């Protein structure tokens, strides 16, 4: 056994029995914090890195115990609903303990790499039988680089297959240490046009595409799977899809292309963290449109793997 790693990071979920985040049965670890603000994001609780509080209106029975329990005066009762002043909230979770209806929750746990690895490896028997392992995702896991590398090293040291799902927006200096610890990269590619990419996500795509090339060159096509989130009105037209496929061919990639149809079901998640106004409804991708994109992918010599 290796010595415990006390490097800490903020994790917002550990999901067992993930079937679609890499080979076999996997446990997916979600790290908090993301540099992108994709307008279709369905994990808005992953944007900010520190823990934050969530509140579900449907569970609230209005008894006000949370308002009374808050030691910092961050909660108030206004117009028949609970409101939180984010600046005053120290995420002490007094409200979580006070609420009899579990309306409050703290999103994000600060944990050591050792503890996260131990929690994920509880399902080790299932990984070994199925050829699975642990997938680290987010948010954007590279936002916590020290913690991410410590966690991956910990998993690797225990013989666990590792996968990393990333938006690709990280310092290129991370490519080398990641390539040494990650068995499979699930690399999100959203759009080839820098302006469209910036408009939709808040960041330029050049760094992302550079990192994709660097990882492909360093790790080889066997260890990289491009994933395209399919967002109607953004990147599901033939030109955009073909552009992405041309880019893959150009960078020498061959193999599976994962297609992730946007499910547009996150309104409640936005409301839970007090960002209901930021939610943008995106129509769901029709089955016919997905089938057409699968055909385009297959026609260009790749293997389309639709998810969801």
């Amino acid at each position, binding site marked *: 056994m290796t010595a415990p790693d006390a490097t800490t990071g903020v994790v917002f979920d550990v999901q067992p029995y993930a079937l679609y985040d890499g080979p076999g049965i996997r446990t997916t670890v979600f790290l908090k914090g993301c540099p992108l603000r994709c307008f279709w994001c369905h994990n808005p609780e992953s944007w900010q890195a520190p823990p934050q509080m969530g509140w579900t209106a449907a569970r609230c029975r209005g008894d006000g115990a949370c308002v009374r329990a808050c030691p910092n005066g961050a909660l108030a009762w206004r117009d028949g609903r609970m409101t939180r002043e984010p600046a005053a909230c120290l995420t002490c979770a007094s409200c979580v303990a006070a609420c009899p209806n579990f309306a409050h929750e703290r999103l994000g746990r600060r944990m050591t790499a050792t503890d996260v690895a131990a929690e994920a490896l509880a399902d080790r028997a299932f990984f070994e039988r199925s050829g699975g392992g642990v997938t680290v995702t987010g948010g954007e896991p590279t936002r916590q680089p020290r913690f991410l590398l410590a966690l991956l090293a910990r998993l690797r040291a225990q013989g666990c297959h590792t996968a990393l799902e990333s938006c690709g927006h990280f310092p290129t200096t991370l490519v080398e240490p990641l390539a040494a610890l990650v068995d499979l990269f699930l690399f999100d590619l959203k759009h080839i046009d820098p302006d469209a990419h910036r408009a939709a996500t808040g960041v330029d795509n050049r760094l992302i595409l550079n990192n994709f090339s660097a990882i492909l060159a360093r790790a080889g096509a066997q260890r990289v799977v491009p994933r395209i989130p399919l967002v109607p009105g953004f990147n599901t037209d033939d030109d955009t899809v073909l552009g992405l496929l041309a880019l893959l061919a150009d960078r020498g990639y061959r193999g599976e292309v994962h297609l992730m149809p946007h*499910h547009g079901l996150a309104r409640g998640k936005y409301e839970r963290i007090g960002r209901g106004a930021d939610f943008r409804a995106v129509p769901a991708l029709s089955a016919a449109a997905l089938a057409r994109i699968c055909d385009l992918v297959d026609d260009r010599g790749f293997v389309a793997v639709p998810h969801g």
Partner: protein
Amino acid sequence: MNATPPTHACARIQRIRDRYQRGAAQISIERARYYTQSWQATEGTGLAPAIRVARAMAHVYARMTHHLDPDDRIAGHWTEHPLGVPVDIERGVFNGVLAAELSRATMATQRVRAATGSLWYLARRGRLGALLRDQRQARRGGGAALDLGLRTMSERAVNPFDIDPGDRRELTRELLPYWRGRCMVDRLEREMEHAGLRSEDMRELAKALPGNTSRQVMMLSTCATVATIQGHLILDYDTVLRRGLDGMIADLAPELERPGLSAPQRDALTSFQIALDGVRVFATRLARRIADEIAARGDPDGTLGALLATCTRVPRAPATTLREAVQSIWTVKTAVELAHPINLHCFGRLDQQLHPFYAADLAAGRTTPAEASELLEELLLKIMAQNLRPESNVLSRFYHRFFGSSPVTLGGVDAEGRDASNALTELFLRAAHTSRAITNISLRVAPDTPDALLLTVAELLAQGTSSFSLFNDPLNRDAMERRGFAPEHALDYAVMGCVETTCPGRTGGMSANALLLARVLDVTLRNGDARTLAGPLRDEGLRTGELASFIDFEALVQAFLAQARHFVGRLVAGSNLRDRVFAGHLPAPHISAFTLGCVAKAADVTCGGGEYDLSGISMINSIANLTDSLYVIKKLVFEQRRVDLPTLLAAVDANFVGHADLEHAIRALPGKWGNGAAETDALAARLMGELSAMTTAHRSFKGGPFVTYAISMTTHTIDGRLSLASPDGRRAATPYAASANPANVERAGITGVLRSVAALPGAELMGCAVNARFHPSAIGHHPAARARWVALLRTYFELGGPQLQPTVASAEVLRAARRQPEAHRDLIVKVGGYSTYFVDLGAEIQDEIIARTEHV
């Protein structure tokens, strides 16, 4: 995106299924009438009971009306109706229901009598006000009160039964009155009363209970029930197929000439002879019914002629084709099941028994896979249709029309321990899907069971078939060997009832009794007294100490185990008493004639004639609630000292009203059982191990072992409705966790559930039900995903999981889960690729998933 399009049953199978699903079932009194005639005629003759029973059924077999359906390719129904149920009038489990609930007048009378009895009971004990308060609190906490209703059996919406008015008069005015006090359940009730196995308070409560419900179980205590049904068995169909009835009758004749037979032994063998003759008469008259049909209506397409040819040959002669083999075992099962209605008679390893016939037919070009499948679909539907119960209004709400509890066992290993699956295994799995019969399909999964077979299971699950029950083969064989089954017989095990294992054809009927675990804890916390929603009962258990005497957690556990040991002792005494009464007054010659060992010993199966015998105690209501309750006490009382035991008990009594902080702390406590948490996994394993050890230490009246089960059927719901809250935070009048399922699954997903269950001492149990609900996407619509589901199952079995019964959630279930999230904590769905609990999702995602599953 299903890889394989759903297969549809042919029109004939669909018609059969529709007939079983729609309209009221009919109560048939023919059996009750003819049985009673014969029984009255042999009264006072000095004949042995076994011979009287055999003759009574011979009288039935010779007079009953055979129904023949135009869609029958397998002939033989157990009543004159397309969907009927006979009356077990001499056993009398349903006599009280039928006496009360067939007409409005008797229902009203019964209601008044029951209400008077209950109110008088409560008033005398000064409990009326307290009961109303408890019920009010229970409702406030989300529990549902019982509503008995005044609709008759034919008027009610759930599980209706019709009866011909003339038959009703005969049944209620002549037949039932004759058997009042004479039938087995009345006799058992008297014997139980005399045996002093109940506390004074329990005796009074038992008297005050409404008499209009079925009596499948008798309460010894709030903590312990004894079943009245002795069934749970698999007949020796191998000999039927190999020798035929004529051969079996010929084989029996010289046995009667054996030297040194005692008079009871001679009587036993004679009764077997009458029984075999009776079944032969049943078969002969069935064939004649087909001939009469041909004479009356003609036979343009030759199907009746083919049926007649089959039914003329079998079961009298050995079977030679698949069709004959199926007809042979069906005729025998129907006749014997008519001798013991609603007694859980099951088929065993049908893929093993029928495969030689199927292979020969295929080789000879006599059948095709499609034709064979249609035959199996009909068989599965017919097994289902013989598993319905004329339940009372109050219980029918907890049931459904048919029970799946007459399983077919598939797969497993052969006599050399190698994979035994064959072409019929897969054909049966697909027939289960196509027929949509709810008959359980118990698949024995051995390490070398092919992945392809399990991928078929996954494929059918993903399409919504939820009747599969998967058994860890090596573990279940180990469990049987530990209870004294020879290794070669353990290899041949099959499943009966829900999930109980047995050696088919060689084992007498098993009557499961039950220990109600949360109530044993309740008695422990009250120093031997009990409390239910109907009030307190004094001296139910032992005086194991006041709350203050539990100086640490271990002291409490020891007190609990002492109480449990006491109730196990009571259950063993009650179970053996029941078996003695059956042996003395209602022997089972028809079962004995088809059970190996009975002829050799010249002993009825009720006297231990079978090669093996089983008695059992099921640990219900439940290991999860018990473990979590003790864990809550350990953490909050003994470690964190947040609350003392008297306060916790007061909160339980108050259904947590006025104890919101404590309830919150209980619900927020992490690490409850079912999350793969080491501490509760170890506690549950220890408790189940101790409970099992105190059970298996006993031997039964019939000379067999007492074995342990964890199967609650629907009692966790019924008993839960009558129970106070429990220390694990379960509120009053809400269900306990089912069977071996976790109750409070929070975070760790299906893998956490499976790790916890696998940590139980599975090889100490001979039957354990583990439900896991999956959304189809959690099984996978793509072969690659399904391969992962197979890996999940294999890993679970490698970790020591005994059994898994996956349920695929329908949209209906999902909608119910939205309305009652607490009752559907375990519902697993996939959203955008990851698995999660449905009730944890936001409303809009739930809506989407509900819409998404409509195509399933």
